[in-house]
């Protein structure tokens, strides 16, 4: 959190909360996904061209006009916008890189829907399998990945590895739900499909976290005093300086152990959701004799003897264990007497020694 009132994330006086311009912009720039969503949930009744026109192009135009009309006040300006637009290029590139070995090793054809999307966008008749359809579908795919990364940077005030993983796990769950239920060819995916969706979104998370760091690294070479690892001004005590509507550096650091345990806890709870959805989808569909995916000998849909529902139990337990470890790792040991203090303590409860944590 930003260190101030956590509710500032939802509303703040200057309009930069989730219920203010940040939320509005995040929705607008994630809208490429809504275009696809309406295409799927109507079982392609609404073409992707219509979905992308009404639910992507028009929102984007409104968003860009808004950006110019509302400089500064919400912390989102054309300049911050441009910066996060560049950051947003990395996440989905890593997302697609993570899927490349899954094709080479196991044969997961991760671009199969790009042909469908392209045909629906272009209104092509005849075969789906043309380079024209592939290219149109690829561009739609890129737009969605870029839009989701934009939404993340618009929503968070500070880019952290943990928040990136939370956001990417939200995307994973959305993917796990929408595709098997609404997309015919993904109706009964083998477990490798679920795994690929998970691991590629986790790579997306790494990209979300990494992009500002790379940007800052090169920015520092030009401007030693102006690092830009955050999306907008930070008011709380840990900001080094307020640069008005410009992105600024912060001295904020979370212990690496806390981050690690928190991410592992997230994986535990998130995978439990995945196993439950997996169990629901596999259990609710009529059995299939058709082995979809792979080089003709795909992995089994369910590994015999291991119901996916049961896998949710150890995942939840792991989630709680790592949550506990994450919570404990924020506690501070006194260098003088060794007493463990609450995470916001400034002085040791035992001996009164100063225990200001090192960054």
């Amino acid at each position, binding site marked *: 959190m930003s260190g101030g009132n956590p509710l500032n994330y939802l509303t703040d006086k200057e309009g930069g909360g989730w219920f203010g311009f940040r939320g509005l912009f995040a929705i607008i720039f994630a809208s490429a996904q809504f275009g696809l969503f309406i295409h799927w949930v109507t079982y392609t009744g609404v073409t992707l061209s219509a979905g992308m026109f009404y639910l992507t192009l028009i929102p984007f135009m409104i968003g860009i006009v808004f950006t110019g009309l509302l400089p500064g006040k919400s912390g989102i300006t054309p300049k911050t916008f441009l910066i996060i637009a560049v950051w947003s290029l990395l996440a989905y590139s890593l997302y697609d890189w993570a*899927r490349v070995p899954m094709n080479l090793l196991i044969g997961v054809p991760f*671009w199969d829907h790009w042909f469908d999307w392209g045909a629906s966008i272009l209104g092509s008749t005849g075969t789906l399998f043309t380079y024209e359809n592939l290219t149109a579908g690829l561009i739609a795919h890129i737009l969605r990945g870029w839009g989701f990364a934009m939404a993340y940077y618009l929503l968070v005030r500070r880019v952290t590895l943990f928040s990136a993983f939370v956001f990417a796990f939200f995307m994973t769950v959305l993917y796990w739900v929408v595709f098997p239920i609404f997309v*015919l060819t993904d*109706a009964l995916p083998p477990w490798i499909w679920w795994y690929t969706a998970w691991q590629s979104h986790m790579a997306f998370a790494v990209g979300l976290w990494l992009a500002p760091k790379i940007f800052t690294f090169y920015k520092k070479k030009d401007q030693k005093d102006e690092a830009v690892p955050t999306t907008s001004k930070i008011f709380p005590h840990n900001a080094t300086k307020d640069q008005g509507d410009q992105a600024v550096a912060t001295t904020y650091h979370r212990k690496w152990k806390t981050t690690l345990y928190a991410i592992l806890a997230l994986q535990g709870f998130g995978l439990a959701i995945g196993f439950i959805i997996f169990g629901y989808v596999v259990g609710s569909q*009529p059995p*299939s004799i058709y082995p979809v995916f792979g080089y003709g000998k795909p992995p089994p849909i369910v590994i015999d003897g291991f119901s996916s529902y049961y896998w949710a139990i150890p995942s939840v337990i792991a989630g709680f264990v790592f949550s506990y470890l994450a919570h404990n790792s924020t506690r501070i040991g006194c260098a003088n007497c060794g007493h463990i203090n609450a995470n916001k303590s400034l002085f040791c409860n035992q001996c009164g020694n100063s225990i200001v944590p090192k960054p």
Partner: protein
Amino acid sequence: MYVAIVILIFIFVYLGPYIFVYARTETWTFPRIDERDIKAIDETDPYVNPVVNLTKVYRVHDGSEANYTLDTGILNRKFLDWIGFPLVLEVKNFSLKASGIYLGKVIFHCNYMEADFPKPTGTEPWYIYQPLVDKYDNTTQNVPCYGDASLIEKNTPTSALLNWTMSGKLVGDKNDRIRTWSDFGVVKIADVRR
């Protein structure tokens, strides 16, 4: 120099997966589709029921006419596409021409065209789609045939020599081909008039 290398790395990171997709499409996806399409088209078979039904005899102004039906169609339309997903080959412009010969005379002839065979649209939920794939794997229909009833009035034949030619455009994921089959053989004639 250093900046140029960094920019090149970024371009590679950004474009790499998409270059991979196009390369794999060219070397794996399309050849795999072609291979499966051709195999599926080759494995289709014509079907002609060895029993022709005599369904009706009725008078017309200058004589009498007989109606027959012949069950015919195309088998083995189902195939697995490049990702192993079950599809049904499209059949367009299906045509059947046949004639039944008895004692050296043509007692009926069939001349039938069907623009498109039924198939799943591909937008159904899985639980609807899968049974449709199985249903349309072997698609046959009763083709109407007609003949001069005076030839069979005195003695309804129980068999005839059937000459037939069938053709249709078979369309796979990416490839299509017109296939034509011809054959002849003895068929039974079943009198199913009520």
